[in-house]
């Protein structure tokens, strides 16, 4: 097991290094460069000044050389200065990361927490009316555009009923826990519903598959109670594909968080990356994307470990 984890960690570091080069190159292909931005904000800069600045910042050197210099600094924890926020990029990201973790964590737990019982209940009688309803619900949640879902929730709960705030993270002058929670309800609801459909389909399909196995019939024949058959025998095996898919969905959950955060003006990593790219904040966009990628890789590693824990055959190989 230790060997397995060490091997996967080394693999992860390699993938992250490759992705950092790809992202670095992509950011370099965005319109303009930091010197253009300086020129735009200071019309007195001459062409000679611009050339001198480019040499000063090393922008005249080849891509690989610039990347290596950046990577060396990044490995020492220096991700450069954010142009939009006038602070080191890392300092800007830290509080945002916590906000996103709250949003994504709550949504992930709620989505799985609702998908598991619903999917298990539906799998008991495939083709029944209840199963049909669950299936329809799953299809609807898979097919709904998450930003539109957010708009509709804002329309109903913020505009029409006036029950909940339409955006932000806290009311100015009120930072209480209740206020923070109220601001979380709609974003978390959006992300939960948008990510629940996929989980629901997988839980249902995996449970139907396992409930048809011989060992389930054996368990029933030996007189195991229905709950024990469902949870002890079927769910444990059905969980293997479900865990894999749930962890692999981290990337799409992050994509969903970007949309949700933008819709609700929620200061998280997704909105940060979006704002940084649109605002030509190259350092911040680069650091944010890399952090998002690293988080995804860690989630996938977590999936592999969980997988090995649920299915003892994996770790031994």
């Amino acid at each position, binding site marked *: 097991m230790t060997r397995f984890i060490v091997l996967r960690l080394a693999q992860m570091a390699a*993938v992250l290094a490759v*992705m950092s080069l790809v*992202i670095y190159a*992509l*950011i370099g*292909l*965005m*319109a*303009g460069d930091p010197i253009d931005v300086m020129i735009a904000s200071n019309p007195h800069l001459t062409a000679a000044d611009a050339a001198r600045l480019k040499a000063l910042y090393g922008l005249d050197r080849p891509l690989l050389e610039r990347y290596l210099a950046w990577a060396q600094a990044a490995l020492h924890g220096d991700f450069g200065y954010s142009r939009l926020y006038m602070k080191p990029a890392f300092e800007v990201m830290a509080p945002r990361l916590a906000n996103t973790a709250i949003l994504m964590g709550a949504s992930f737990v709620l989505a799985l927490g609702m998908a598991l019982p619903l999917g298990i209940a539906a799998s008991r009688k*495939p083709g029944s009316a209840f199963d049909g309803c669950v299936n329809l619900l799953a*299809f*609807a949640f*898979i*097919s*709904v*555009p*998450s*930003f*539109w879902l957010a*708009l*509709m929730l*804002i*329309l109903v709960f913020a*505009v029409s009923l006036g029950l909940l705030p339409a955006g932000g993270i806290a009311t100015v002058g009120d930072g209480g826990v209740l206020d923070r929670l109220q601001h979380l309800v709609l974003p978390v609801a959006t992300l939960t519903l948008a990510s629940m459909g996929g989980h629901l389909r997988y839980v249902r*399909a995996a449970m*139907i598959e396992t409930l*048809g196995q011989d060992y389930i019939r054996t368990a029933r024949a030996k007189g195991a109670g229905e709950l024990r058959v469902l949870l002890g025998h079927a769910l444990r095996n059905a969980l293997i594909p479900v865990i894999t898919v749930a962890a*692999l969905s*981290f*990337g*799409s959950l*992050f*994509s*969903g968080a*970007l*949309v949700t955060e*933008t*819709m609700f003006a929620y200061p998280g990593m*997704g909105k940060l*990356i*979006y704002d940084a*790219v*649109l605002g030509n904040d190259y350092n911040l*966009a680069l650091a*944010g*994307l890399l952090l*998002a*990628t690293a988080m*995804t890789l860690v989630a*996938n590693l977590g999936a592999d470990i969980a997988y090995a824990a649920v299915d003892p055959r994996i770790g031994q190989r």
Partner: protein
Amino acid sequence: MSAELVLARTAPWRRKRLLLPALVLAVLALAVVLGPALIGPAGALVDLRHRLALPSLAHPLGTDALGRDLLLRLLLGGRVSLLVGIVAALAAAGLGTAIGLVSGYRGGRVDALLMRLTDGVIALPLLPLLVVLAALDPAKLGLGFLARSEDASLYRIVVLVALVGWTTVARLVRGATLSLKAQEFVRAAVAMGARPLRIMVVHILPNLASPIIVATTLSVGEIILLESVLSFLGLGVAPPLASWGNMLTGAQETIALAPQLALYPGLLILFTVVACNFLGDGLQQALDPRARRE
């Protein structure tokens, strides 16, 4: 495989599951193709004196924030959304088929590498990466001539979405190729000295029709969703060209005054994507006997 054959092989109650979504999509397609001509082009003009008007005889669904006829905008937007969805899904299917074929047929290291790439594309946070890709400067890519075209945003969105939408097709095609590779007719072709490219294209590809059709149908829905969110974020189809996604861009500001502007485009996206998903799911069950057990 022809449509009649699919229907003939399908149990009656399953036929309804195929026909209903197909009918919904056909009606939508017909409406967006013929509708705008029936309404006439006058409603497409900006008319600031009649902004956010309520439904009337002249404007059956009212007008948008610039006084344009909402029904006409919805139909024109549907044209773009459906067209982008279908073209990008076909492009993605082509890319996915090529990757899946090579991966499944070659096996070994090529397969391992391509499947790692596929897993990577599935697992990565795609939207943030797409945001960056959409912000790339065409001039720096040597495509400056395309950027000057009026439809530049259409080309961009098709390329972007195809770049990330190929994974479903690739996996299904790879799986089917693996099982086809072991069959006698393929081994006979190898024994007769056919080159790998010929075997892949002439012997294997024609047998992949049903998984490709299923995966493409399923990915049309996914791709329409992706187009809508990118256009909504201002990175996809660019105004004044309408798409269901970009019609929602300004809707958040006017949601208290004119909730219908936020309602209709989203409902149309929802119906279209649900129909595509049901159609794909139904086709899968009709074409793949193994999936029928469920």
